[in-house]
């Protein structure tokens, strides 16, 4: 698998594609250019990590790619479809069926149980919710005995596993993750990364993951490095050592 600069005639099917994407924040003098002409493609069925120093634009890149944020320039394509200026209704449907999210803060609804949280996207999409499916997914992430627990009654690692189960149950084609292991200890982190690997290998899903952790990045198929809103480097089939090395050079 490769992360390619998109060229005309490219043959690899891309799940997400950024064409010259620019994103600026703030007015006049205080203007910040968080993304600066980013050309990037994320191949379908692969797992790509995005790394870079703090403030380099990683989260912004993820939000723009997922259609959560409007871009200032350039185009964003999701599964070959231009979503650069898609209306809210289209994006809502995408969020229901096509894309999923996992974040550092686990983003579960506090008043709902683990089981209800997992079933929520299906219920919002109006599809019939099979309790068995929901329970199977929770069992698969090792939470078969915590169905009725509220998020505040779960540990951080368990909450993140609920969030992953929620992303698994709708089988989204693209999963966006921003520091999914950022708040977890190394054992919980390994469990979560293992689950994500399963999604890509068994389910053929695409994952775009922002991380600061070289070990997490090494679980991915490829790594791209951002600095000051530009793609500055890339690694294919990364090892922990090589990632840490590049990162040290960037930050140094």
């Amino acid at each position, binding site marked *: 698998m490769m992360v390619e600069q998109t060229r005309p005639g490219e043959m690899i099917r891309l799940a997400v594609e950024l064409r010259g994407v620019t994103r600026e924040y703030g007015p006049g003098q205080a203007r910040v250019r968080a993304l600066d002409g980013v050309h990037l493609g994320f191949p379908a069925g692969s797992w790509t990590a995005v790394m870079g120093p703090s403030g380099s634009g990683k989260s912004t890149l993820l939000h723009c790619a997922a259609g959560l944020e409007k871009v200032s320039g350039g185009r964003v394509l999701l599964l070959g479809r231009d979503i650069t200026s898609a209306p809210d209704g289209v994006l*809502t*449907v995408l*969020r229901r069926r096509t894309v999923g999210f996992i974040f550092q*803060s686990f*983003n579960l*609804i506090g*008043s709902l149980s683990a089981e*209800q949280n997992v079933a*929520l996207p299906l219920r*919002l999409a109006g599809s019939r919710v099979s309790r068995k499916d929901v329970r199977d997914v929770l069992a698969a992430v090792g939470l078969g005995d915590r169905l009725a627990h509220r998020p505040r009654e779960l540990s951080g690692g368990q909450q993140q596993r609920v969030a992953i189960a929620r992303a698994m149950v709708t089988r989204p084609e693209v999963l966006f993750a921003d520091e999914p292991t950022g708040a977890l200890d190394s054992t919980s982190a390994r469990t979560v990364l293992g689950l994500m690997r399963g999604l890509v290998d068994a389910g053929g899903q695409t994952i775009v993951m922002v991380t600061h952790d070289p070990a997490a990045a090494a679980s991915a198929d490829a790594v791209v490095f951002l600095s000051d809103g530009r793609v500055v480097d890339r690694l294919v089939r990364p090892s922990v050592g090589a990632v840490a090395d590049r990162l040290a050079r960037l930050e140094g």
Partner: protein
Amino acid sequence: MLRLSLTTFREHRRLFAGAIVAVALGVALLQSSLLVMAAIADAKIPPGLSGQARERLRDSYAGAATLLGMTVLLAAFLALFIVSSTFAFTVAQRRRQLALLRLAGGSRPQLLGLLLSEALLLGTAGTATGVLAGVPATWAQSWSLVALGFLPGGFSPHLDGGIMLGSACTGLVVALLGVLAAARRAAAVRPLEALRDTGRAARVMTVSRWFFGTSSLAVTVWMVWVGQASEVLGAIVIALGVSVIGAVALSLLSPLAVPLASRLLGPVLRSSTLGELAQANLRDAVRRSASTAAPLIVLVALVLGLTGTLDSLAAMVGEEQRRIVAGDLVADSTGAVAARIAQVPGVAVASVQSTVPISVTGRHRRAGRTYRRTLYSGIVAVDPSSYRRTHRPAPRAGSLDRLHGRTIAVAPGQSEEGWRLGGTVTARVGGQRMRLRIVALLPPTLENGADNFLVPRELIPAAVAARAPAQTVIQVAPGTDPAAVAGRLRAAGVGTVRTPARWADDRAAAEERANMAIFAVLMGLGGLYAAVAVVNAVVIAGAERTAEFAVARVTGLSRSQVVRMALIEASAVTAIGLALGGLVAAGALAGIGAAGVRAVGVPLIAVPWTPLLLLVPGAFLITGATSVWSTLSATRRQPVTLVTARE
């Protein structure tokens, strides 16, 4: 969606408690007021009553119906106000949760549906409580209307299914209407906001708030300015307008006004670390402090503005009467006794005015139409020459000299009702009918319920006049001490004898009491709602701050310090709300003062001390107690469990 809203409703039940109480109160009041009004409409005037008694009964029914009508409007308005501010507040507070729903694929209509079903649940709970509470409220309301003298004793309403159903539906409609604006704002929440704390969540002064706030402030300022140059009645209308619109303006602009005012409190607060923290919180949590202050602003402005206006009017009535009456003493007695007054040594002139039980029927013109009307009250028999010597204002048309034989004079109470000089009316004296010619029109006065007609004494049979209640204005002979004459009159047993000043003051006090009877009901109601709104805001704010308090405690504050910090904040907000409300009331009364100078030569502003002395400690007590309670319950759990909890 209903199941989801059931869960969120249960989760946020404390946030909704205030709105439920408001809807329940509204439904209960609506139902009981409508039931009492229906009973009034059905009420038969008992046969065999005199014309005067019938008119009094009909007047009191009309008065009660008006009062109930105002109650209904006020209850509906306040319920709507509280429900909508509750939802605005909870939506602001739950932005992250709503954004999460959007992130999980929730569409805008779905979010709208979620909030509407929450409102429906809230409305149902409030309505059910209200319909049940409305039954005892009906009895309580008719009892208090009887006690305040608006309804005759023995009046009793009965239950009516249609009215109860109607009130229940109104409760649901109010809940749904109240949520609309908040739901529209909720639907505008963007999914990205789940990941960030900034963005539109921080915005309190919305465009519509700016627009309506500044425009009503401009109208208020303009009215205060115009009020400086208007007549008494105009000034009163303006003062009422200033109270209402000014209250709306400052409560809309409270997110700006409260932090500004808190800067003035700065030196006091900064004297302690906790106070400094509290002041920083006041400035930072604009939405929270504004929603506590707003109901207080409205309450204080309305209560002080309205009672101040009416009491000032009462004071002016007293002053005016003092100027009208040219006498040394005023005596109250029956006609028979009054006839003896002139014989008492030292009395030079005694003008006896007996209120006689006759009726006057005639046609008068108002607004281009003529009406036929019969009046039974305020018809006074006088001796024209002594009346003229003891009452200063000359008729604006005709002359009291001609008040002899079959004639009548239009007194201040009917002065602006369109009677014409030279016209005729039919009077019924005992069993006899006679036609009377209008020979004089007296100028109007400020008094509410002033005399309607003057008739010459010779028209009234002596027996009738002797039984009628009479008021006698007395001038003592030159060089005689009025006090000595008063002593002689008292010794002769001619009833109550007062100086005109005393008499005018008593008259003002009676007018004030009549105002208070009406306002006691409305103000009690307004106060109740304001208390619900304030408690609601403080409770919601407390619930919202669980995490913030936990952080403060982890940082090193003890639980009691956190409670004290919140208490300082609540007290400061209360002081600010009271002061801003007082400012509006002062603006309202400024025009009255100016009009008083023009009408009676002195700025007669009655500061309504009784409501003020009830309101100020009451407000501090309620906000303080609620703040302590909600802070204690928000800090019950160990801070660590809260600091690590994440949505």
